[in-house]
């Protein structure tokens, strides 16, 4: 029982990270109907920017909460630039091309970003000293002590806060209304005087910023990153987006949590070596039997 609770806590933490990345997939899919294959690498770049800023601020000796806030903002800003540029260079010229064109372009972009980071930052793994220590302990008098570290609490709380802001942005502001309108009918939205290109750019910026926060959490949680982390994390987050119903924002978060839990429990109870197989199998099974996911709208084929 205690072991189960521990796994539950770990799974929720991991799920928060996946959920934040999944939002980027689901938003882009919702608005332009493409799988942004390079999104996982945007997350990786976010993690690198966060790592670099942690090292720089680590030398200044500022208090921890201020460092966290600064790194968060810096990572969001710089990573958003990447998301924006990728959209402008690789996806925008392809609107109206054949269906697989944006996917191939995104694949190319993903290869470019990975190798670009490998060339400029080196291929070796980058370890970081832990910033957080300690945590709360439960079930102290049983055999297995359940630990909820402060870092895990930080990750989950930050995710909840961001989700709150994000939901407000999408449901209550003009920007969010424009975004949802573009999802439904791009031509009509343009006729009503909304700048569709700008809205799509902003979608990419929001998605990339959230991915960069996930990147920062990843650096803190695992303490080691390399240029290749975006690939696996990207696939898992995409699985999360599909599981929750691609195009649905609450679905992305729900899917992220589920994937995090599935992966943790699989690693804890079944087999550690095959934990990535679990994520891929879920992806295949969901896509075959359940392609609309939990909260997605059914996909109607039109001639």
């Amino acid at each position, binding site marked *: 029982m205690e072991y189960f609770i521990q796994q539950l806590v770990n799974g929720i933490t991991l799920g928060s990270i996946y959920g934040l990345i999944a939002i980027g997939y689901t938003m882009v899919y919702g608005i332009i109907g493409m799988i942004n294959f390079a999104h996982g690498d945007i997350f990786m770049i976010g993690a690198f920017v966060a790592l*670099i800023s942690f090292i720089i601020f680590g030398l200044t000796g500022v208090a921890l909460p201020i460092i966290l806030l600064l790194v968060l903002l810096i990572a969001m*800003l710089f990573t958003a630039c*990447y998301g924006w540029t990728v959209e402008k260079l690789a996806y925008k010229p392809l609107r109206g091309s054949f269906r697989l064109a*944006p*996917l191939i372009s995104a694949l*190319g972009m993903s*290869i470019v970003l990975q190798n670009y980071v490998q060339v400029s930052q080196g291929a070796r793994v980058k370890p970081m000293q832990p910033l957080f220590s300690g945590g709360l302990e439960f079930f102290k008098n049983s055999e297995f002590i359940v630990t909820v570290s402060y870092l895990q609490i930080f990750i989950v709380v930050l995710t909840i806060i961001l989700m709150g802001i994000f939901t407000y942005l999408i449901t209550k502001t003009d920007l969010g209304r424009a975004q949802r309108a573009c999802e439904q009918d791009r031509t009509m939205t343009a006729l009503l005087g909304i700048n569709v290109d700008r809205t799509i750019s902003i979608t990419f910026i929001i998605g990339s910023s959230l991915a960069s926060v996930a990147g920062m959490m990843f650096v803190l949680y695992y303490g080691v990153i390399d240029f290749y982390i975006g690939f696996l994390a990207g696939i898992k987050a995409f699985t999360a987006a599909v599981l929750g119903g691609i195009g649905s924002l609450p679905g992305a978060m729900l899917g992220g949590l589920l994937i995090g839990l599935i992966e943790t429990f699989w690693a804890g109870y079944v087999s550690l070596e095959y934990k990535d197989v679990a994520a891929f199998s879920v992806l*295949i099974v969901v*896509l075959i039997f359940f392609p609309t996911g939990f909260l997605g709208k059914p996909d109607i084929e039109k001639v």
Partner: protein
Amino acid sequence: MEKKDIIQSFKDSLFTGLIALALFGPIVGLRTVSKGEGLFITPQWGVVFLLVGLCILGRFLININSARRKEFKIFSTLSSKFSSITEDKAKHFAITGILFAVVFPFLPFTDRYFMDVAIMILTYIMLGWGLNIVVGLAGLLDLGYVAFYAVGAYSYALIATTFGWSFWICLPLAGVFAAFFGILLGFPVLRLRGDYLAIVTLGFGEIIRIILINWYEVTNGPDGITGIPRPSFFGLPFKRSPDEGETSFHLFFNLEYSTMHRIIFLYYLILVLALITNYFTLKIRKLPVGRAWEALREDEIACKSLGVNPTNTKLTAFAIGAMFGGFAGSFFATRQAFISPESFTFIESAIIVAIVVLGGMGSQTGVVLASIFLIGITEMFRDLEQFRMIAFGGAMVLIMVFKPKGILANRKPTILMHGDKK
């Protein structure tokens, strides 16, 4: 050009520079280096300023030069001329190419290194042709093609090392196994839409690789399989000193022993395998099933209403493509005599997809040109290995943006109802 325009484009390029600074600043400018315990930062501002400067200059030139459109027009007319030439002379081109490939090992400048590169290029050409059936003809984007390559290589290696059967028995078996895996995967997933299918095949490729790494008892895990038997020349091994009762190749033909014999034999082996793949593809395009593939690629709903069973048709494409992947895989295993999961990463799949896409999906000649270009020319710049991958990815994006049908666009169906309607 008016002064206002110049100022405007100057402002625009400064903005580009600002964005470039934000992009390159942290990732290129602040390189993290491990020293003793922990990471330290080495600034590289020189490179950043160079890159930012290039971006500003490039943007400014593009802006100032409103001839931008004209330039691309020249580029596209050139390439369409080029493709019309090659289409007209496709036969001559093919015959010259094959003749050249046949005499290549005996040309005076051909040495061991050239032969190795040529064998590698031919392997990729074969893989490209195999994948072209799936991507180019049937229009299914398969991002896990390397899985079938791996299945072929491992089935050859396992059968040959366990039972000691010869290459010629194992080769078709490896193809059959790969095709079987193709059906196994294809059956449930081929109902999916194009982009979902791409992701699922990618997942499948990774699953195969993870299984190869972890299933120690059979695959020997990350250490791979060593001592895979080399192929023999119809029973004559390429050995300096053959075992008793055996005659080796050089003794039989009264030649002086040379390792080049084996290399040349391998070269012709892969050449023949690749040509079989090509011949098969060209023939099957004219059969009902080949026609159905192309029709499905163009319009799936129309096909369904005309009574073509999309799942079965796609399944044949998938299985046949997988089979050729399996053949190529067993060739790879026998050439290397050693295989490990390292050789079957996602990047391999991406390279094969890149070859097919850059060549122009569906074009057989395009695959050859793209393989020579991507593998051959980049082989010359081995030291720049990582830059090579950046160029790969960049080329994929550029081709999609400027010429989405590939360098040699040949996506037009083999037959059309009303003559030669474009």
